[in-house]
């Protein structure tokens, strides 16, 4: 198990309950969330995880999840002009926290394996009455994989390489 240098800090802040008093103005959190710097992003997710600092804006909320930061940056860049609030995550724990904290409309990810082999990732992403759409990007076009993903509840399977216009059209059509 990887050692987490931020865990003691998080535990201390959680224990002392100082988060409500030192959180920055909510809208600024989106700047931290979009950073590709992993540690700053994790700090921002931690604040969000407290559940109080969700922006009240009516824009679409899109989470881009990829363990490869280059791919996350690519998708973010391709959706640049779209009016939405973006969150970039690099691990499954961050993704689940971000889904629970920000009530997102759409999850874009290239990690198909997290939905396979009986895992309950989809149940964790879609909790309660909250059902974000999930788009997956993958090179694996085998019938078995695509069928398995659609059965799990993935809304859209997009093969790589991406057609930019098609991706933007589909994301724009999300309500």
């Amino acid at each position, binding site marked *: 198990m990887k050692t987490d240098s931020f865990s003691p800090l998080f535990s201390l802040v959680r224990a002392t309950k100082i988060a409500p008093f030192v959180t920055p103005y909510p809208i600024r959190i989106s700047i931290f969330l979009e950073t590709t710097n992993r540690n700053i992003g994790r700090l921002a997710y931690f604040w969000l995880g407290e559940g109080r600092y969700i922006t009240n804006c009516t824009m679409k909320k899109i989470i881009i999840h990829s363990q490869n930061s280059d791919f996350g940056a690519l998708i973010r860049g391709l959706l640049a002009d779209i009016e939405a609030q973006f969150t970039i995550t690099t691990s499954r724990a961050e993704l689940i926290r971000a889904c629970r904290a920000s009530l997102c409309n759409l999850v874009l990810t290239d990690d198909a394996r997290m939905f396979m082999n009986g895992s309950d990732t989809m149940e964790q992403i879609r909790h309660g009455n909250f059902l974000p759409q999930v788009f997956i990007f993958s090179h694996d076009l085998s019938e078995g994989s695509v069928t398995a993903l659609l059965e799990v509840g993935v809304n859209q399977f997009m093969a790589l390489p*991406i057609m930019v216009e098609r991706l933007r059209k589909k994301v724009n059509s999300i309500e």
Partner: protein
Amino acid sequence: MIVALNEEVALAVALPMIMVLTQTIHSMRRGYRTSATARCIMQIAKLVAVPEEPSDGDIRRLRLRFSSSTLIDAAAFVSEHIYGEALYRLSFIVEECEIDHHLLKSIRRATTRQRRVKLLAKLSQLASVSVAAEYSEGYLDEPEQDIRTYATASLIMAHPERAIRYIARLRHNISLHDAAMFAQLMRRAGAPIAYTPLLTSKSRNLQLIGLYLCEHFSIVDAEPLLQQLCESEDATIAQTALFALCTIQGDITTPQVKRAVERLLPHQRDALIRHMVYSCYSLRSCANLLGREERLRFAQRLNSYKCQIVCN
């Protein structure tokens, strides 16, 4: 003696600290390079995503903000992951930022084989958007196989209509991975591909590409040719033809298939058993090809999938 001891202690303390410091600096530089590449990818993707051509200011900012090596990595990554009209906008960015010239310069200056192969691989990703790929024709006669392979890949992307000629020109036998790469590049570049001339070709490399296409696209009409290729003298071709035949759920009770299976090594027979189960063959149709223990393994694997199989 005390002075000598103190010197030894100082050395024992200083050396690990120097190592830790060096590793920290190295990982910080690698982290900075990684995040710089990600930022560059984001900027290029933003320019490529909008229908209008990037302005001079955008290009200038891109060139000032990122080094040429970062621009090369980022452009190659973006080119690999998109297709369609966005590639033409990317070609404009590549030309304006002179990414192809920097890449060619780096290839010429590369001193090690691995570095040259890596840069040629990047050129093959960018070759659809630059004319610099023609320079890679000079690397087709290099002694290193990897360099020849990736030089061929970049030429295929630049001139897809000549793909067959470039592949037939290769002096070494390509692997299935290389065949898959060439086939994907030919599709991406929009080259018309017909499987019959590839499968009936005398070139072993072209046959391998034809077999990959038949398996990948499940071309059922290719079954007679696949049955013939199962008897090929080249072991790789025969094995690949056998696997392709199973993928399209062809007839595996023919004498050609039986002879091809007998020539396989034990680990190849195990792989074939797994593939036949995955391709939904029944035990009855494979009984003549397998030994007693292999039939047991086949049955176990079949039951583990818990699916009803209809005899072929």
